[in-house]
């Protein structure tokens, strides 16, 4: 009667199949097909399809409950077995979970850090379209990048280019005294256009934005508002800046996130800056502020950048255009830009380190679970005999490792939370773990757990599920050669990573040590620096008198050798540049060099030696404004044989000093020239005093006494020059500490894994060892046999780790103009450390195996 069977929709059939237990799935599907065919014959395929699908949808609840039922039934068994195994092999379990926990903790902390670096400034809604404009000057000694721009540039840009929607000028005026509500603190006051709130995202807590930054008003951040007004409402209150400018507080912003490049405590309108005497109203003479622009959504920054040469010609001339470029950096890249391209690189290095640690922990897991497989062979055999398919076993073991990882994840999260404050200290950020408020964090951590679980569980799962039930039940399953080889490869990988980490730590240490102890060609020891200037006082004439007295008193203080007033000290050289046109200079463009304003005691105070010529002399009237002291680098750049007596910009060079490293050692010593200005003046920003170094505390107390007689309202602030210089290597120190901890964690995890593996191997080979002893092997032979097995992968690890570390560390060292050479000592040390550690670990087990009486091992045979 029926000639042809029509098949119902496949997807539907697939789903329907899920409803039934395998046992009689086919009979039910067959019934359904028959119904389907009947409807098809009666009413056509559309009706039949609809009916069939309706059946499927109606069975959906059943499908789920079915899945759930069967899964939970097995799951209960899986969990029980997993728990029993954990309990039975406590040592392994502790190593496994401990390793994973350490890996996950490191992973969470570093991911948080990396996330905060990679999302720097992204909290601004317009971060895609906002750019900082900076200039690149082409000089004979390379390109100089500076970010300071001019008062009229913003308006010029906005009016010239339709692609630019808006712009804002920001000028941070540092170390200014601010008074109000009977309090007085030194602050950085930021002058900015009101458009700052249109371009950046700084939500207000109190007050209104837009209109609020009108003339003579001020916006504070929360912490500053509290500092001055405590719990009082700051709105409507007045603060006085630099003794002269009065501002009414009209708003308080929310605290700016820690990963923001743009920070301010006190915001006042840029309009007010125009009233300050030394701020030029217009023109392109003086550059001191930052200009940010916001492009229209559809604008292309590269197209805009290509138009800037015309703007430079318009503002200056063709000649300037040939040696100057304007470029844009996106707000998203600003942090990396500001750090000189190291921030993202360091974050990537740390990411790599975190991945390495997790890898080491995962490998431990793989090694220990596959080596332990002997103990589970019987279980696997029984499961297979009872009908478990390979797939189910894979799921089981994968599930087990994910379960273990999740357990480690919980421990890791707890540990990470505990360690976060210490970690924040280390990296200098305010990271927070917002587990539940932030979906990304939550999912990220869960994902981390899943990835680690799957990564470490997949190999053991495949390995274990391959066991043949006949072998495993007969008890004939030994560790196969293939398994042993794979484990050796994994041990090799672990140790290779650990050795790379150790060498990395050592090289970074060496480099920091080198930078701290390099002969900087000046004497950084025992120099006390007090940041103070006549500009900081209400009455600068009176202040000049006071400072003069203070300095004189310092000179007579026991323990103080010399006292100097200066605009810059090493580590804090001003970003002030001048155009120098030396005598006989026939290049079209002048040299752009940094300059500093010093008094006659400066070089003596910091111990800089002269190559030729003389120091400034206060008795020589011509020295003031008419004389210069330059450094060797400048002489070399100009190409002079001898500089003394030559003219630069109509000032005479009277002396040449050695190339002292006035900047971080990441940079080579660049040309710098020093002008003379004796006595007290607004150009000097520091008082530096060389002390004998005997009884330092007494000297400091004496200085503090003198200070309080000068101005009792202000705290005595000072720092030591060498401390200040060491601060420059903070980010290197931070990364070194993190890498160091990671190296330690990595080697500990790897060693624990090796310990587990060794003890296991010894148990496995117990009988073999006993027989060897019976037939005459000495203890030495036995120890040698076992040691060889374990030291081979570690020797190979060394062979691979060395070139990898050389490559990586060379890359890192490229950041520094002054760098250590990669000595062999670091590599030898790291290699020997790894090898001897592993030998100690292995020898414990191999010795105990060697000394065991063969009778104990063989009595069962």
């Amino acid at each position, binding site marked *: 009667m*029926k000639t042809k*069977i029509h*098949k119902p929709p496949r997807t539907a059939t697939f789903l329907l199949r899920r409803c039934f237990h395998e046992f*009689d799935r*086919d*009979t*039910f*599907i*067959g*019934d*359904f*097909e*028959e*119904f389907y065919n009947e409807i098809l014959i009666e009413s056509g395929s559309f009706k039949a399809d609809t009916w069939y699908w309706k*059946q499927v949808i*109606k069975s959906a609840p059943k499908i789920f409950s079915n899945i759930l039922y069967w899964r939970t039934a097995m799951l209960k068994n899986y969990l029980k077995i997993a728990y029993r195994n954990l309990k039975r092999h406590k040592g392994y379990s502790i190593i496994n979970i401990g390793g994973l926990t350490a890996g996950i903790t490191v992973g969470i902390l570093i991911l948080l850090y990396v996330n905060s670096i990679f999302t720097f400034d992204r909290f601004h809604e317009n971060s895609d379209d906002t750019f900082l404009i900076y200039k690149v000057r082409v000089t004979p000694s390379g390109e100089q990048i500076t970010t300071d721009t001019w008062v009229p540039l913003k308006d010029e840009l906005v009016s010239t280019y339709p692609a630019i929607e808006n712009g804002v000028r920001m000028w941070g005026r540092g170390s200014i005294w601010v008074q109000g509500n009977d309090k007085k603190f030194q602050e950085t006051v930021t002058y900015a256009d009101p458009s700052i709130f249109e371009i950046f995202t700084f939500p207000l807590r109190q007050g209104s934005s837009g209109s609020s930054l009108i003339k003579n008003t001020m916006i504070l951040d929360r912490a500053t508002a509290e500092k001055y007004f405590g719990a009082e409402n700051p709105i409507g209150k007045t603060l006085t800046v630099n003794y002269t400018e009065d501002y009414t507080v009209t708003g308080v912003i929310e605290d700016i996130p820690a990963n923001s490049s743009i920070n301010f405590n006190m915001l006042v309108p840029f309009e007010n800056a125009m009233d300050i005497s030394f701020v030029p109203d217009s023109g392109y003479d003086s550059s001191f502020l930052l200009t940010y622009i916001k492009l229209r959504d559809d604008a292309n920054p590269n197209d805009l950048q290509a138009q800037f040469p015309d703007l430079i010609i318009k503002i200056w001339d063709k000649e300037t255009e040939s040696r100057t470029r304007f470029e844009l950096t996106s707000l998203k890249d600003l942090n990396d830009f500001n750090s000189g391209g190291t921030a993202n690189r360091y974050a990537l290095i740390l990411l790599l380190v975190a991945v390495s640690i997790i890898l080491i922990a995962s490998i431990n897991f793989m090694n220990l679970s596959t080596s332990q497989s002997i103990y589970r062979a019987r279980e696997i055999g029984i499961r297979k005999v009872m009908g478990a398919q390979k797939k189910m076993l894979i799921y089981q073991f994968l599930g087990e490792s994910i379960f273990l990882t999740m357990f480690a994840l919980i421990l890791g999260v707890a540990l990470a939370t505990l360690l976060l404050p210490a970690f924040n200290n280390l990296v200098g950020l305010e990271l927070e773990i917002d587990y539940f408020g932030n979906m990304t964090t939550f999912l990220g951590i869960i994902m981390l757990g899943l990835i680690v679980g799957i990564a470490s569980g997949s190999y053991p799962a495949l390995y274990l599920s391959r066991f043949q039930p006949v072998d495993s039940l007969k008890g004939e399953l030994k560790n196969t050669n293939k398994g042993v080889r794979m484990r050796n490869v994994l041990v090799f990988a672990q140790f290779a990573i650990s050795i790379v980490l150790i060498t990395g730590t050592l090289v970074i240490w060496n480099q920091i040590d080198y930078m701290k102890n390099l002969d900087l060609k000046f004497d950084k020891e025992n120099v006390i620096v007090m940041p103070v200037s006549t500009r900081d006082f209400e009455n600068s004439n009176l202040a000049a008198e006071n400072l003069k007295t203070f300095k004189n008193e310092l000179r007579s203080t026991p323990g103080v050798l010399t006292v100097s007033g200066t605009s810059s000290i090493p580590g804090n050289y001003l970003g002030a540049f001048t155009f120098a046109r030396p005598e006989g200079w026939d290049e079209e463009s002048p040299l752009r060099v940094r300059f500093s304003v010093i008094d006659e005691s400066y070089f003596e105070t910091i111990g800089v030696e002269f190559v030729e010529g003389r120091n400034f002399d206060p008795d020589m009237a011509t020295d003031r404004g008419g004389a210069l002291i330059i450094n060797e680098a400048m002489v070399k750049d100009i190409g002079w044989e001898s500089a003394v007596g030559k003219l630069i910009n109509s000032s005479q060079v009277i002396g040449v000093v050695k190339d002292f490293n006035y900047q971080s050692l990441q940079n080579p010593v660049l040309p710098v020239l020093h002008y003379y200005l004796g006595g007290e003046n607004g150009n000097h920003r520091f008082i530096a005093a060389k002390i004998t170094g005997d009884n330092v505390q007494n000297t400091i107390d004496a200085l503090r006494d003198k200070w309080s007689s000068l101005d009792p309202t202000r705290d005595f602030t000072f720092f030591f020059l060498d401390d200040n210089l060491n601060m420059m290597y903070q980010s290197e120190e931070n990364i070194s500490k993190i890498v160091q901890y990671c190296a330690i964690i990595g080697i500990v995890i790897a060693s624990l894994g090796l310990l587990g593996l060794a003890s296991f191997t010894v148990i496995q080979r117990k009988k073999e060892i006993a027989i060897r002893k019976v037939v005459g092997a000495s203890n030495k032979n036995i120890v040698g046999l076992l040691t060889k097995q374990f030291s081979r992968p570690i020797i190979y690890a060394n062979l691979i780790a060395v070139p990898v570390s050389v490559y990586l560390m060379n890359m890192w060292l490229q950041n520094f103009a002054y760098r250590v050479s990669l000595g062999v000592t670091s590599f030898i040390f790291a290699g020997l450390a790894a090898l001897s550690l592993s030998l100690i670990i292995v020898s414990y087990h191999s010795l105990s195996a060697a000394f065991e009486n063969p009778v104990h091992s063989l009595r069962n045979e």
Partner: protein
Amino acid sequence: MKILSRAEELTLLSVWRLGENAYGVPIRKHIIKMTEEDWSIGAIYVPLDRLTKWKFLRSIQGDPTSERGGRSKRFYRLTGDGYEALQRLKSIQNAMWESLPELGYNTLI
């Protein structure tokens, strides 16, 4: 012993009636034909399942048939217990009917 529900009763009767050919499709068709109402698949298979569990029916997996594309059928047979359950239900029903008074219009609402 449980009293059968109507669906269970109809299912058992259909299985009995269909004899050798009692599997899901004809059972449902028979019930639909006799009751002249549409019965969903679930309305047949659920009682079949339950009745099998109570041992009123015995299920036998048939051989794969070519007409169903190699899929086998699940056949049902009435068991002794099932027969007894039907008899019991019938006698209860009879007893109930017989206990009624003479039906007249005055007793209807």
